[in-house]
């Protein structure tokens, strides 16, 4: 079943055509990875899924993104509500300068959560594989945690609003290898409950962690401007053992540029 169905997506920043004609289906309870060189538009496409591009004044999105069949850019859709259903984890761990507890509790609080907040915080931290490490220091600043722990806290924070999708924008690029593998392991565990889309410039990471991989590349349009395009989208095993496009093969074998 498709969580997202993207059809002919085009994204512009002012006159700059950042992404051209992307069509992609994201399946439920799978990890979909977006890979490609810098400027290929992979992050731009990711940020369309929770309407994060709305925050950039000059951004313009054309085409269609269906979320469980609903047009994500339809007139009645409230981006704030969208972001409660589609959580996001960013490149650099960005916990709030607040306590560990408040970091996780913030989302549910503003959403008017009525249940037992303590339990929600605990289960969110459990799911993010962080509970055992922080259960005794919940009232301490999130900045007291290591980078890897901070990123897992950010995952717990995203989970706390009970989303069904997690968007991860290079979630491990600021972490050391061990912390990176822990995040990847966590993603494997989370995909039972969530649909995950990860943008990564680390193709080995995409190979290790994802079920499907989309390879984006930069091409020049008629005006000679650089534009991101989807080159190939397939099962990760196939992309990394037998890619159909030469551009994909050149990229994953390190023969690009």
């Amino acid at each position, binding site marked *: 079943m498709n969580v997202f169905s993207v059809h002919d997506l085009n994204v512009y920043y002012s006159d700059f055509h950042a992404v051209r004609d992307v069509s992609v289906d994201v399946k439920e309870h799978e990890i979909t990875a977006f890979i490609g060189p810098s400027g290929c538009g992979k992050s731009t496409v990711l940020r369309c899924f*929770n309407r*994060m591009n709305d*925050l950039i*004044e000059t951004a313009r999105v054309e085409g269609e993104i269906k979320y469980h069949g609903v047009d994500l850019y339809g007139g009645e859709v409230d981006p*704030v*509500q*969208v*972001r*409660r259903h589609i*959580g*996001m984890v*960013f490149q*650099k761990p*960005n*916990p*709030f*300068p607040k306590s560990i507890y408040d970091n996780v509790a*913030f*989302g549910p609080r*503003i*959403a008017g959560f009525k249940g037992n907040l303590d339990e929600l915080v605990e289960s969110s931290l459990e799911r993010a594989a962080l509970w055992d490490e922080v259960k005794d220091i919940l009232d301490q*600043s999130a*900045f007291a945690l290591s980078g890897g722990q901070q990123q897992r806290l*950010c995952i717990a*924070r*995203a989970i*706390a*609003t009970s989303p069904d999708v997690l968007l991860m924008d290079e979630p491990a690029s600021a972490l050391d290898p061990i912390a990176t593998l822990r995040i990847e392991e966590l993603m494997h565990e989370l995909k039972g409950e969530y649909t995950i889309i990860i943008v990564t410039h680390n193709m080995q990471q995409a190979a290790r962690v994802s079920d499907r991989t989309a390879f984006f590349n930069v091409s020049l349009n008629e005006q000679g401007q650089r534009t991101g395009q989807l080159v190939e989208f397939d099962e990760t095993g196939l992309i990394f053992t037998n890619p159909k496009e030469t551009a994909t093969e050149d990229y994953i074998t390190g023969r690009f540029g």
Partner: protein
Amino acid sequence: MATRSKMPTTSDLVKASISGKKTDFVGIAVAFILLLTVFVSLGILITLLADMLIKGWSVFADRGWDFISSPLSPDPEKAGLSQAIFGSLILMVFVVIVAFPLGVGAAIYLEEYAKDTRMTRFIVANMRNLAGVPSIVYGLLGFAVFVQLLSGITNGRTLISGGLTLAVLVLPIMMITASEALRAVPDALRQASYGVGATKWETIRHHVLPVATPAILTGSVLTVARAFGESAPLLLAGAVLSNFFSAPAGTGVVTLVTEGDYTALPIVVFNWARQPQKEFVAITAAGIVVLLVILLLVNGVAIYLRDRASRRAA
């Protein structure tokens, strides 16, 4: 193989290329000059302070608290600062009440809400220009607007007119400081907040403002301190230069503010400094010392508030 003993080994070559310490004269000279600038700046300040303390010391020694609590007087032996301190403090209250919310509010709007249009950029550029306008111009404005045009509200030459004039004077600075504080809040924090489904106001209220508060507070208090030392605009906006009779004991603060003549510390210091009598030299110096002490106190409060706020934010 016979030449081998003459051939330098790799480690000989490496040793030659990485050893031989040379003295970095330029570096030492630069460090020395920079240190000198520190001493000169500090030296000027210390000289000034010492000069004032020495000249004014007799006043504190002879009169003590009487110098602070006495009203103005043409007689340097009796003249005191009570009215000036009162005036200055009330002026600061005006600045805080009027300029702080206006400046911070405008900054929040321009930084967080306003779209990046030509109009916005025009307004911001003008605010920056206003911050550079000489304070005497604000005095003229205060006189024309608050003392004359709005005399029905301000009662003419009262603390209200003076306070509003100073508030308008520091408003652009207040706004620029607050803007910079808001701009220093990392965008990652806003994104994190939007990412969990917060609205714009929730993001500002829960994340941006708490982080920006220490810097806003510090900037604001320093701005207030600047207003505290201003004399030129007040001269035009109605502060009384010459001595005036103090209101009868028991007059309410409200009446003092809304009806009475007023003066302020820098005005008084300015006035005393112009007096020909030799005795005024000592009380002028003593007045400056009081002014500096109050400024130091205000700055101290600023540092305290900032530390407390940043502890809470982190």
